[in-house]
């Protein structure tokens, strides 16, 4: 088995004249929990979109689970599960139907699919709401459902783009516990972004910090603290990325507004 499950080389992505990701290279080791940190607008989500084949890079290459994201899209897609930053559920369907749809799309055989759905829906505490429409769920419930969904096909890699936003400490704690277990028992690699530094410090084996499209630091939490001579990861992060507040060009809607046009010929 290869040592690195994700290999990124000289990755670059521009939107018009804004460089979102600027010539970054790094690897993620097999079976590790990798935290990808950075202020708003630093290029985290753009990088994840390229890693998950949703966006083609302008330059550079990405190998995920041994497959190139540009050429072997389907093999790459089979390799990972993802919890997006923004909601991505079908509101007109029930919780169960959303999970079932996902399982079929990922070709999980019916018997196994039903077992896993049963197990996961219990785990995220939505078992008694399984037949309710997602549109009636709170933000936290939707998040939990999306996490369950991302795990149905037992991916080799789990991408979590700010998964704990809007979750209470109980759910957060519970969720990280489960993800750590999966990571240990199944050797599932986890690639996560978060703004909660203590979360990253507690759970991640390796941390990379991106700012203005460039990787500015990489190592364990301890190494980063030593490097900056700070007592916590939060302080180290602030020292590395500065203290001023960032603007974000964020979601598709914002981007459309920002570009001031309705035809999406990017």
């Amino acid at each position, binding site marked *: 088995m290869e040592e690195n499950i994700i290999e990124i080389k000289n990755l670059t992505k521009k939107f018009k004249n804004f460089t979102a990701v600027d010539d970054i290279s790094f690897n993620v080791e097999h079976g590790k929990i990798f935290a990808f940190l950075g202020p708003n607008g630093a290029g985290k989500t753009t990088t994840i*979109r390229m890693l*998950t*084949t*949703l*966006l*083609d890079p302008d330059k550079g290459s990405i190998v995920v689970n041994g497959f190139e994201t540009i050429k072997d899209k*389907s*093999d790459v*897609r*089979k390799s*990972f599960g*993802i919890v*997006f930053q*923004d*909601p*991505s*559920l*079908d*509101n*007109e*369907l029930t919780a169960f*139907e959303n999970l079932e*749809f*996902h399982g*079929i*799309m*990922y*070709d999980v055989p019916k018997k196994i699919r039903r077992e896993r759905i049963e197990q996961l829906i219990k785990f995220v505490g939505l078992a008694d709401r399984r037949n309710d429409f997602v549109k009636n769920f709170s933000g936290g419930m939707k998040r939990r459902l999306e996490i369950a*969904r991302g795990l149905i096909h037992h991916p080799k890699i789990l991408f979590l783009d700010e998964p704990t936003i809007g979750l209470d400490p109980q759910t957060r704690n519970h969720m990280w516990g489960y993800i750590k277990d999966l990571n240990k028992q199944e050797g599932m690699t986890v690639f996560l972004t978060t703004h909660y530094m203590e979360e990253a410090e507690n759970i991640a084996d390796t941390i990379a910090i991106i700012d203005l499209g460039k990787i500015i630091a990489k190592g364990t939490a301890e190494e980063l603290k030593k490097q900056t001579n700070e007592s916590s990861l939060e302080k180290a992060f602030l020292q590395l990325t500065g203290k001023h507040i960032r603007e974000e060009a964020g979601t*598709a*809607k914002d*981007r*459309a507004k920002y570009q001031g046009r*309705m*035809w*999406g*010929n*990017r």
Partner: protein
Amino acid sequence: MKIIYIMWQRQLIRYWRSRVRMIGALGQPILFFLALGFGFGPVYAKAGGGNYIQFLAPGIMAMTILFTSMFAGMEVIWDRQFGFLKETMVAPVARWKIMFGKTLGGATIAVIQAIIVFIMTLFFGFSPNWFLLPVALLFMFVLAIAFTAFGISIASKLEDMQAFPIIMNFLVMPIFFLSGALFPLDNLPKAIDIITKIDPLSYGVDGLRGALVNASHYGMALDFLALSAIALILIGLGTYLFNKIQV
């Protein structure tokens, strides 16, 4: 096959759950049918055209298909806005299957709506040629496929719903009004004649008219060929554009 089926099924589940809205959407074709049918009926008869209700009913069915399938195709924009498109786009399945499943789903809904309109026209004096009803259904289906694929093509290039009124006013409405759904295609001024020949809906309307009231202008064989060719082209275009979506 499973992927195409589940995409189709999702469309139908959503249709069934929003059936109140869909019944509401039948108001417009019925209003057109009644107002124009009975309003222009006497003039049409006086001009020697015969029974306008008979003439108009297939046009109204085609109209229902046009509107419903364009809407259904453009639901891709909602999927994009609510984020669900991302979920389908990261799945390890060929995009063309997703696109084709959506097309079949939208087309099925459009045909169901058209059948409801068909039944309603019966109550207002429409008397079809029952013998060729299967042919009429075939025309409805090909027409619905073509316009759902067209709707998906457009939606693939749009970021949000803001352009929707423009699409309605400058694309859907002209396609409807310049198709021969409301007027006979004989003796038209040259310009209108050319436009109606370019308009894909013309062939759908004409085919339906051939099957249901035995009054085709181009002949049903030509209608079917033209319509099938248009449908294939639009499926190809839709697949191409849908493939290129980046979310």
